């Protein structure tokens, strides 16, 4: 019984992902579902950093960009296998995260926000300017992702790949939060001095979770690039970073379910609002403002508290 209750959320998510294709009428909807899943996985990682550990990053799209361009450049210009390129991209993103994290995490609050913002912008500029390799502002084509003799092709196949990845990320995030590592992470958010006195090396933990979230952002950048078959520098730009942070905040900080809901809603919203023709950005902005005024802690924690039980996520 204990096993079942522990895995209930995972089983529900698996059920939803399994049944969803029954109601998705065409490839357009598959496409939206895939984008939702990609965002959800990035946001799960980012929420570990922002929501659980209490550190901000305004440059995470930079890491998405590194993954996307690694998957575009390495196979195209150097003939690498796409999987190897994807791994290399994630490794580069992790190493960059590791190098900048130590000095960055001496900073707090606004300074930390500025430093991560700068990091993201630098990555975006490099991608835009190194036109020989990246195609500059025009972007470049990305070869298909083949494994063995099999190539992932079309929305339906990609859907199942991402369903699997999302399930894994969800499961791994939940595990992490409910582990000694995850508790240390949340504790340093709650009280840095208390967690230090309890033996938590707080800088090490901040750095580790920054690297982990960068790693997943990069992997998802690679997946996005292969899925769409084309990358432009927009994937690494500031607006994409903000979009990701917004998903964390609207869905709910320090909430695993909030990450999913935030990603799903903010991916769907622009599509749903497209009927407003030209005014969709205004409506989109109004909805965000409304959310933040009436649900400052995010959708999931606020609603969970209102409809019984603790707002905390575990």
């Amino acid at each position, binding site marked *: 019984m204990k096993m079942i209750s522990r895995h209930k959320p995972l089983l529900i998510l698996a059920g939803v992902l399994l049944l969803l294709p029954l109601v998705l009428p065409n490839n357009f909807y598959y496409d939206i579902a895939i984008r939702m899943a990609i965002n959800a996985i990035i946001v799960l990682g980012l929420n570990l950093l922002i929501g659980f550990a209490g550190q901000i990053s305004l440059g995470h799209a930079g890491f998405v960009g590194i993954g996307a361009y690694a998957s575009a450049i390495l196979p195209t210009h150097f003939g690498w296998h796409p999987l190897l390129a994807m791994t290399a991209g994630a490794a580069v993103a992790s190493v960059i995260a590791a190098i900048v994290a130590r000095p960055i995490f001496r900073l707090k609050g606004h300074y930390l926000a500025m430093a991560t913002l700068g990091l993201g912008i630098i990555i975006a500029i490099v991608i835009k300017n190194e036109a020989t390799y990246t195609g500059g502002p025009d972007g470049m084509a990305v070869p298909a992702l083949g494994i063995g003799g099999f190539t992932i092709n079309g929305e339906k196949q990609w859907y199942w790949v991402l369903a699997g990845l999302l399930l894994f990320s969800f499961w791994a995030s939940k595990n992490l939060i409910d582990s000694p590592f995850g508790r240390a992470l949340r504790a340093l958010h709650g009280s840095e001095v208390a967690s230090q006195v*309890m033996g938590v090396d707080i800088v090490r933990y901040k750095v580790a979770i920054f690297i982990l979230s960068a790693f997943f952002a990069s992997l998802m950048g690679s997946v996005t690039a292969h899925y769409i078959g084309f990358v432009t520098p927009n994937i690494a730009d500031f607006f994409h970073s903000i979009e990701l942070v917004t998903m964390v905040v609207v869905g709910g900080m320090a909430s695993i379910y909030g990450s999913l809901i935030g990603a799903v809603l903010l991916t769907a919203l622009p599509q749903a609002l497209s009927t407003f023709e030209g005014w969709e950005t205004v409506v989109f902005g109004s909805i965000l403002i409304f959310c933040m005024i009436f649900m400052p802690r995010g959708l999931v924690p606020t609603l969970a508290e209102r409809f019984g039980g603790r707002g905390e996520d575990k």
Partner: protein
Amino acid sequence: MALLEVENLSIAFGGVKAVQNVSFAVDPGIVYSVIGPNGAGKTTLFNLITGVYTPSEGEIRLDGQSIAGTAPHELALRGMARTFQNLQICMNMSALENVMVGAHLQLDRNLIKAMLRFPALARRDDQLRDEARGLMRFVGLDAYCNLGANSMPYGALKRLEIARALAAKPRILFLDEPAAGLNSKETAEIDELVQKVAESGITVVLVEHDMKMVMNISDRILVLDYGKKLTEGTAQEVRENPDVIAAYLGSTV
């Protein structure tokens, strides 16, 4: 040999010498209290010993080894734990999880194993949950086990800090005003709890304003005034020292 030795310890914040030339030694297994009027430097002394501040001058030794300037998380590894005068509870976690954080150093803290929920790690966590419940019971908080820390009353949070510190299985425990802000009944309960902790073999260093409690449970007492050591001795000696009376009540001159 003394468990903790402090020698000529000083720290200055700008021109303010918060602690000046303080020396004392704490033998293992005793309750050692630090008292003094407000602003005497008691909490600063704690912050120096537990690594939160780095001393300007002087030496701190644990088991004869110098620890001055060592980071707090490394001191935890050597068996040091503390509570805070102004509560430092993680309000974003449940009461039980706060206690579990105390056991941080006894656990497998690997990130990959945690994400994949290795069976050994999960088993140890379940076991720890039971141990943490036991500690909550020990400090008299069984009723709060499943609550968020943010929904607990002040008096309970004071004891939660003690439970969390005990989870670290310390050899020496620093309690910074565990009874501050508590009513007389709650203070008596804390008094009892501190004695229970001391009886379990943990050396306790206590900062406290409640004189009844201090005189009752301390083996030795250090009196600070304006950052300096005024005197040190047993409860009886301290009580009869005219300097101590002068510091607390003002001299008659």
